[in-house]
């Protein structure tokens, strides 16, 4: 068709919807209607947003569309203006209080955890280093071998790559660096500056099969692409100690502590939860393992494609995952749309 482009289609479709909603105002509310999904500016959330969009459109007949977002602005806008309707991937650690307050006031609804394993943070080393030195499973063992992880600017010392400047994990890694007395063990804490810098340092080490030790987190494309092993910190997560010292900026006497599992959930506006119970039920069911997410993110990175192509590939590769999220009838509709 000649005019099958967005610019020409928009006004026509809007007119059609206006007519239809005018005629069937009551039943439209019971159906899914127009849904806006926050497309966050990091890859795993982008993938989730496209998966949700596809399922809501083809499985539940929603008129779903993505809007750009970032954690704080999106949560604020959802709670104040009920827009967008869905935020597929919110890392609760950073915004727990805001969200709990809004849920209490009846402005937001928590659909459920999107990551079955939760967000995993820690200190990691490449798999090939572990293969060559099988004893390096704990931080303590690694700290005995600064020679395996030489700093690029001073080969006589080991390097612990820190989390990017200004991120919360930077001060945590900094505290753990002191807690485990890594300086004395012959290591320096290397500032990576930005996530791009951190990723680049891993990619570089991997291409040359060099040692690398540092902070990272999952699910991420990097961990999908590069096989890394998380080190055992030797202790479990102690929330009290975390609040007292490990997570604090001005902590003078840090002691060893483990990372908490990050809770990562899907949030919707309260009105969406009320008006579209079936779609909301889907969002509550929808959760995937980090292995799957890492794999898809790495696929996206390799293909240099965005969430749309990543989502298509996910539907093809992992029907065993997504068919469990929806009733059989809906799954059949989605299969037909693929």
């Amino acid at each position, binding site marked *: *068709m*000649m*005019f*099958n*482009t967005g610019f020409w289609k928009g006004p026509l479709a809007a007119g059609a919807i206006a007519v239809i909603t005018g005629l069937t105002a009551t039943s439209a509310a019971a159906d899914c209607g127009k849904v806006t999904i926050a497309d966050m500016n990091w890859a795993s959330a982008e993938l989730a947003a496209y998966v949700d969009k596809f399922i809501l459109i083809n499985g539940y007949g929603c008129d779903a569309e993505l809007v750009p977002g970032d954690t704080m602005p999106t949560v604020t806008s959802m709670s104040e203006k009920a827009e967008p309707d869905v935020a597929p991937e919110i890392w609760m650690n950073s915004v727990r209080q805001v969200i709990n307050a809004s849920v209490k006031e009846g402005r937001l609804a928590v659909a459920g955890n999107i990551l079955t394993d939760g967000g995993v943070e820690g200190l990691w080393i490449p798999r090939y280093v572990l293969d060559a030195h099988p004893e390096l499973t704990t931080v303590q063992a690694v700290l005995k071998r600064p020679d395996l992880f030489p700093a*690029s*600017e001073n080969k006589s010392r080991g390097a612990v790559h820190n989390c*990017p*400047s*200004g*991120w919360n994990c*930077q001060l945590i890694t900094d505290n753990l660096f002191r807690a485990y007395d890594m300086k004395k063990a012959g290591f320096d804490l*290397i*500032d*990576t*500056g*930005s996530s*791009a*810098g*951190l990723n*680049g*340092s891993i*990619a*570089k*080490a991997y*291409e*040359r099969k060099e040692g690398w030790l540092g902070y990272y987190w999952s699910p991420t494309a990097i961990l999908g692409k590069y096989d890394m092993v998380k080190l055992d910190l030797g202790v479990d997560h102690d929330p009290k100690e975390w609040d007292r010292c490990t997570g604090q900026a001005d902590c003078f006497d840090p002691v060893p502590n483990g990372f908490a599992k990050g809770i990562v959930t899907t949030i919707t506006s309260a009105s969406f939860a009320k008006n579209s119970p079936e779609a909301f039920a889907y969002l509550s069911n929808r959760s995937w393992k980090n292995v799957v997410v890492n794999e898809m993110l790495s696929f996206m990175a*390799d*293909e*240099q*494609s965005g969430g749309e*192509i990543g989502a298509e590939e996910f539907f093809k590769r992992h029907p065993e995952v997504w068919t469990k999220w929806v009733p059989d009838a809906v799954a059949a509709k989605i299969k037909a749309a693929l």
Partner: protein
Amino acid sequence: MEDGGWLLRFPELSRDALRAIKKSFDFGYRQFSRTYGEAIENVFEPLLQFLIWFEDFFTETPWMLIILGIATLAWLASRSWKLVIGIVVSFMLIGVFGMWEHTMQTMAMIVVCTILALIIGLPIGILMSRYDRAQSAIMPILDVMQTMPSFVYLIPVVMLLGIGRVPGLIAVIIYAVPPMIRLTNLGIRLVDKEVLEAADAFGASYWQRLTGVQIPLAMPNIMAGVNQTIMMALAMVVIASMIGVRGLGQPVLKAVTNQYFAVGLFNGLAIVALAIVFDRITQAYGRRLQEHTELR
């Protein structure tokens, strides 16, 4: 696509073709960095040592000596008490607000960058002024260097050299060296034809004419180039810290991600203070050169 579709939608390459291009490009670069990365890293090793030496020099020299040194430099360049006092006061403020170490790290970076820009920029500028063909070939390259968003080349540089000072320095120099080259070229080209004819009449060789006439007369412009290079290098401080370069950029970056307004402002002002200090010194020097040569 149906008939006539290409009238409305640009007939772009297919998704697969585009992907193949992107992938082969990336693959090629990865192969390149895998094969030559270590060799290239070794080439830059002396530069790294030079940088580290400079940084140690600035951070370990007692603060009073540093201030004294800069004040002397300012006096020699400008012979203006006002400037000297202004510089001493601003460095005192930087120290009082706890930004001394970061400022010294940034200063070491800027000084090394300026030295390298001179070493790279002068010969290229001279080459361009001598041959029109060189000028027309190099100009577009300079345009690319100045306008290409730095993130685009930052990541490949990190893949090749890792994070830290050297890749940061390379990114800064790519951005900061063009004015040096442009103004050297311009300065030499602006030297009066009559003066050159006089030099030729005395039987000056090319080298004599260049070092004895053209460069001295182009000095004010070359100094303007140095000045611009320093300013642009300072503008890159924050970007460079995104790949782990130490200095005033780190706290700024931290402030940006956490909305620490005061921290950002203080460190931003320290960068401004450095910029003003360098700017006034180089400009005053350039002006005094002009007075000597009576080219005002």
